[in-house]
């Protein structure tokens, strides 16, 4: 199963953007020169202490970092096993982890002299974060969002417009996140001279998966330090939900070379893995889409299949390439949670801790509820609470109303 384990799980990707067999740069020629420019600009920024100093300043005073590592006492007591800590990314400005990455990319865009920013969004969290930072830095912002998602994530659409962004509802294909990404790529091909594509997850052509991971790794780095302060040692397990997988990669990456730390990613199993779902690793196989090779949901002809998840942010038929590699090497275990499990977890955390999680993060909570009771009381479990549930309240109200009838 694991033919060639690397010396380190943290050294990838190679210079061509490969994590093992995954990743790469599968894009149209029009975009290739810009992607090479971006790779250079990011390498220069990464090596520049002034870039990090400026970013850290904004992370502290604008985003509100560090986000707390909070011991969920009542959830721990209720489940009767592992000691559960929540990494409170939902307390960041804009309400999710997405802002960590957007801040980094906007700073790179500014260094490259780009004045127009485009983004794709599913749940709207990445769109809101992008609209927010574009407002802060006076940049033009266009957000592509599937028409289905525009309907089910209305509060975030209003927020983006209020922040001055133009939200374009995407009517092509399945009208969800993958189509929003197609449309953003079409915009980028057309406006390549002045436009920076701010990708919201650890996917797309190299250097995006690496760059987004680097910007999100602040989550795991803080967790390491905070757990050391709270318990004097490393956590025993980490859990995070995965659509493209940026909040998960941010939490996981700093711990990949600590073999004592068990790591779990949670995909969206939708109606169940034998029906419509969005679990690319559980139900897909390697293919090429949106600039990278990775696990994808597709048919025998290589046509991309519709994903389904109750959560717009996980409703994507692919996953970041580094996750595909971590799956194949066996370093990370990928599980899945259904729509119903996520809804139940949403209620559980709301009632026990007074914290309504985003439906995305609720998938991770669902697996905490399954795994924690099987662990001993001195087991330290960290779950990434990647976003807040406020945006989901209208949708959940509708679902619960429908069930009562």
């Amino acid at each position, binding site marked *: 199963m694991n033919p060639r384990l690397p010396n380190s799980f943290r050294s990838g990707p190679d210079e061509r953007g490969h994590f093992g067999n995954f990743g790469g740069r599968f894009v149209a*020629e*029009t975009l290739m020169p810009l992607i090479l420019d971006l790779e250079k600009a990011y390498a220069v920024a990464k090596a520049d202490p002034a870039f990090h100093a400026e970013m850290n300043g904004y992370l502290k005073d604008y985003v509100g970092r560090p986000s707390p590592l909070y011991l969920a006492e009542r959830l721990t007591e209720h489940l009767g096993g592992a000691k559960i800590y929540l990494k409170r990314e939902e307390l960041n400005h804009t309400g999710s982890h997405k802002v960590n990455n957007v801040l980094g990319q906007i700073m790179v865009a500014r260094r490259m002299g780009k004045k127009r920013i485009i983004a794709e969004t599913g749940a709207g969290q990445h769109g809101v974060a992008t609209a927010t930072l574009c407002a802060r830095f006076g940049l033009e912002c266009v957000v592509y969002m599937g028409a289905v998602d525009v309907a089910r994530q209305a509060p975030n659409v209003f927020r983006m417009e209020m922040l001055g962004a133009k939200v374009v509802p995407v009517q092509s294909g399945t009208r969800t996140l993958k189509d929003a990404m197609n449309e953003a790529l079409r915009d980028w091909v*057309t406006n390549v001279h002045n436009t920076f594509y701010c990708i919201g997850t650890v996917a797309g052509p190299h250097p995006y998966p690496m760059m987004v991971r680097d910007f999100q790794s602040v989550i795991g780095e803080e967790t390491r330090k905070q757990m050391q302060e709270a318990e004097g040692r490393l956590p025993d397990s980490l859990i995070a939900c995965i659509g493209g997988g940026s909040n998960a990669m941010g939490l996981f990456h700093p711990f990949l070379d600590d073999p004592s730390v068990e790591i779990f990613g949670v995909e969206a199993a939708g109606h169940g893995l034998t029906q419509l779902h969005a679990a690319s690793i559980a139900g897909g196989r390697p293919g*090429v*889409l949106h*600039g990278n090779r990775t696990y994808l949901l*597709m048919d025998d*002809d*290589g046509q991309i299949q519709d994903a389904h998840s109750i959560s717009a942010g996980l409703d994507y038929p692919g996953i970041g390439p580094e996750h595909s590699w971590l799956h194949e090497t066996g370093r990370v275990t990928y599980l899945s949670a259904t729509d119903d499990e996520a809804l139940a977890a949403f209620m559980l955390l709301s009632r026990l801790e007074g914290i309504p999680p985003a439906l995305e993060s609720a998938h991770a909570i669902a697996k905490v509820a399954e795994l924690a009771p099987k662990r001993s009381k001195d087991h330290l479990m960290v779950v990434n609470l990647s976003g807040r549930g406020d945006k989901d309240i209208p949708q959940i109200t509708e679902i619960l109303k429908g069930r009562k009838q």
Partner: protein
Amino acid sequence: MTTRIDARFADLAKEGRSALVTFLMAGDPDPATSLNIIKALPKAGADIIEIGMPFTDPMADGPSIQAAGLRALKGGMTLRKTLEMVRGFRKEDDSTPLVLMGYYNPIYIYGVDKFLTDAKVAGVDGLIIVDLPPEEDDELCIPALKAGLNFIRLATPTTDDKRLPAVLANTSGFVYYVSITGITGAAAADSKAVGDAVARIKRHTKLPVCVGFGIRTPQAARAIAEKANGAVVGTALVDALRDSLDTQGRATTKTVAAVADLVGSLAQGVRGAKQAAE
């Protein structure tokens, strides 16, 4: 290695004219009609035929070609059936070059080696794969060249002189210059800019240069044919096909003729060009 593409350009050079290159989606709106359309193209005046391989997520295509792909997929088109269509065409025509154009994933899933073998046997001459830049040449380009197929690369306005040699290195058959930064079916480039770009590419290669994106009319095809070795027309043909369908999106008795007639007038435009590019 000489392919039908090389032979065709050699013949056209003798005639002193440029090529009309046509694009249509395989299986649009159904496999049988699509084969009939492709069979009608050489007689109507197409010199080189590009056949789109339908894909659910065509990232570089505009609404017309996206819709054509979805019509074809809805009609049950697959990569296997596209190759069958090529075999059907080759029963009657052994000289018109056929180029398959599309995205990598269906080929990757079919299996690269099996695809190249089957494509060569079916009578395919070249491939244009939009999402395989030179940085990914090991995937399909090098194996395709070894299998005796041309690998036709796209060059764009963002491909500068520094990058052109890398783009041209493993290109064969012809170079496809995308005249605008944008998706298929978008606005056309002006012919002066196209002429400059073609001249720039020709400083780096002896291969023929064909120009596409935004060419819709015989006049536009003629203007491009004066600057380049070929004019590629896709969206306009796909639109003519679409306009001939019934309200349920099915082919009508007018469908084949609608495409062939437009190809005929485009061919007149190309043949009326004052002189072909050197």
